[in-house]
């Protein structure tokens, strides 16, 4: 392999490639490393240049922070709500576009993905105003509804990608063998969609969890973890926020590793089956 690359690229381009990789990884990971390091610094402003010694105390400070905890709970509640709304909406939209061969398909598609192109602030404000007219003031409910408007477009795109790959004759074959439309959906279409249902739910959760600009306008007096962190920016940062970062980096690495191990096993199992 290395022979091939050194012969097809010259020595000069090999060096350029290596330099590029170093810069790329530094750009990606240096801020993360600094953030992690500052979370263990005794100094009470996030910094690595002013090192006052190693400490775990910011973990303790965070654990005592009730607004952060309630924010986390709110974030999870909203994300669950978003999943409940955006999964069926996205699936329905995807069915409509992939199966209904209408000449308005292009228009329909445009309308359904337009929330992705609309600034998040506008989604948040418009949802708030709409529901306030109906007597519902800003809160977790409006935040979830506002987020779902654009996250439904994401789930729809994912379901569409999957449905487009399905052989429609499978559904026809099931119908021909006497299955009703409900039976076709349950026995043929749903099993086919299963992997996408899982990934779409994960994406919807993450999109919801990290959302700031839609939520901040729709949530009224309440707060999520992300809006809470945002609002504290105004009074200067505390290393406790870095600790949140550290926890997420840790969780990400853990889940990514589990996922890779799981996938490798699945691959081996499939190749053993096929072999």
């Amino acid at each position: 392999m290395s022979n091939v690359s050194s012969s097809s690229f010259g020595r000069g381009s090999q060096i350029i490639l290596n330099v590029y990789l170093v810069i790329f990884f530094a750009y990606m990971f240096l801020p993360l490393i600094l953030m992690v390091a500052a979370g263990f610094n005794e100094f009470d402003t996030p910094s690595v240049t002013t090192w006052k010694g190693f400490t775990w105390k910011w973990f303790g400070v965070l654990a005592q922070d009730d607004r952060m905890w309630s924010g986390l709970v709110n974030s999870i509640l909203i994300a669950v709500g978003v999943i409940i709304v955006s999964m069926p909406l996205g699936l329905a939209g995807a069915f409509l576009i992939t199966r209904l061969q209408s000449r308005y398909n292009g228009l329909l598609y445009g309308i359904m993905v337009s929330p992705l192109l609309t600034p998040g602030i506008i989604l948040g404000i418009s949802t708030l105003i709409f529901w306030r007219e109906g007597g519902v003031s800003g809160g977790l409910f409006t935040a979830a509804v506002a987020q779902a408007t654009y996250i439904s477009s994401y789930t729809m795109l994912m379901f569409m990608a999957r449905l487009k790959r399905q052989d429609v004759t499978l559904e026809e074959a099931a119908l021909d063998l006497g299955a009703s439309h409900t039976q076709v959906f349950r026995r043929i279409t749903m099993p086919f969609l299963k992997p996408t249902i899982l990934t779409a739910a994960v994406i919807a959760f993450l999109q919801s969890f990290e959302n700031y600009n839609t939520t901040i306008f729709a949530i009224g007096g309440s707060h999520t973890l992300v809006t809470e962190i945002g609002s504290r920016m105004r009074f200067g940062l505390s290393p406790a926020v870095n600790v949140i970062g550290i926890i997420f980096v840790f969780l990400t690495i853990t889940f990514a590793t589990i996922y890779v191990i799981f996938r490798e096993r699945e691959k081996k199992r499939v190749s053993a089956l096929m072999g």
Partner: protein
Amino acid sequence: MRGMDIELKDVSIRFGDFTAVYPTNLKVNAGEFFSILGPSGCGKTTILRMVSGFSNPTSGEILIGGQSMAGIGPDKRPTALIFQSLALFPLMTVRENVAFGLEMRGMARGPRNDKAQELLDLVALGDQGEKIPDELSGGQRQRVAIARALAVEPAVLLLDEPLSALDLKLRQHMRSELRDIQRKTGVTFIYITHDQGEALTMSDRIAVMKAGVIEQVGTTDQVYNEPSTAFAATFVGANNMFKGKITKTSKGEAEIETKYGLLRGTNPQNLSTGSEAILFVRPEKTLVLSGKEKAENTIDVTYERRDLEGAFVNLHFQREDNKFTVHQTNVDLKSFDKGDQCTIGFDARAAMILPDGELADE
């Protein structure tokens, strides 16, 4: 005999401005192996989809077993369709595939698995029930599709070019197997194909279709030996062709004036003197004449080459731009060199004169 008859009464279908099938009348008998033969895009699959209930005719009526199928969906018709892609359910085992139709009818697991096993035995896959379709070979998948369709005990089995994805050997094997299954079960088969060999070897009767119109319906012998149009003649089997104008008719025969002189042939449609016509003669009825052999019609040609197919050989001749083929069995062959001057010929009884018309593409 559990097959049912199918009748198309003035059935046509249009998609926007495009007429896929012009008003068609067709009767398929109960328990018959019936093929619809035609080039791709001629509307044969559309007919199949109308019979199975996936498309609705723009006009006319389809009857199965004497009952009108108007307003009856594919899940309620006594038909089962075998798709060109087979459409086996990839996430189910072979047994679950075969038992699917029974499951949908609410049959309990025990009886439906017994029935599935019976059908898998019928198609010689008795020990493959636990595999998933992807683990089977093309021919095996083919047989699973047949078993799955037969499991719901259809009166009519509709097959949409199911052999087209298989290699030649397997295709020939599956032909006789399909024929066997059809005889054993007595189900009416409607078989769609663009392969004349398939249609001729398996069918009781054939419909030759072109551009949304059925040109001829007949037994395999009728379609091959007595084609009714220039298209049917050229789509089913090979021909040597001579275009010209009829100069004389007498007692079922006619004489046609061609570039290479006057030729005589049968005149099955009683064409009158002066009509534009084509004389067709099959390569196996065309002879290479040496000194003592004689034929009513003769043409001087130049030898080009031969194609040895094993049991038989096709000899190719040429005159100007026209190519001629003589089909001989591989017994006591004479050999020729390229450029040899030869004479080919045929008797009037062996040739047919049909009205000039569109030919099938080579």
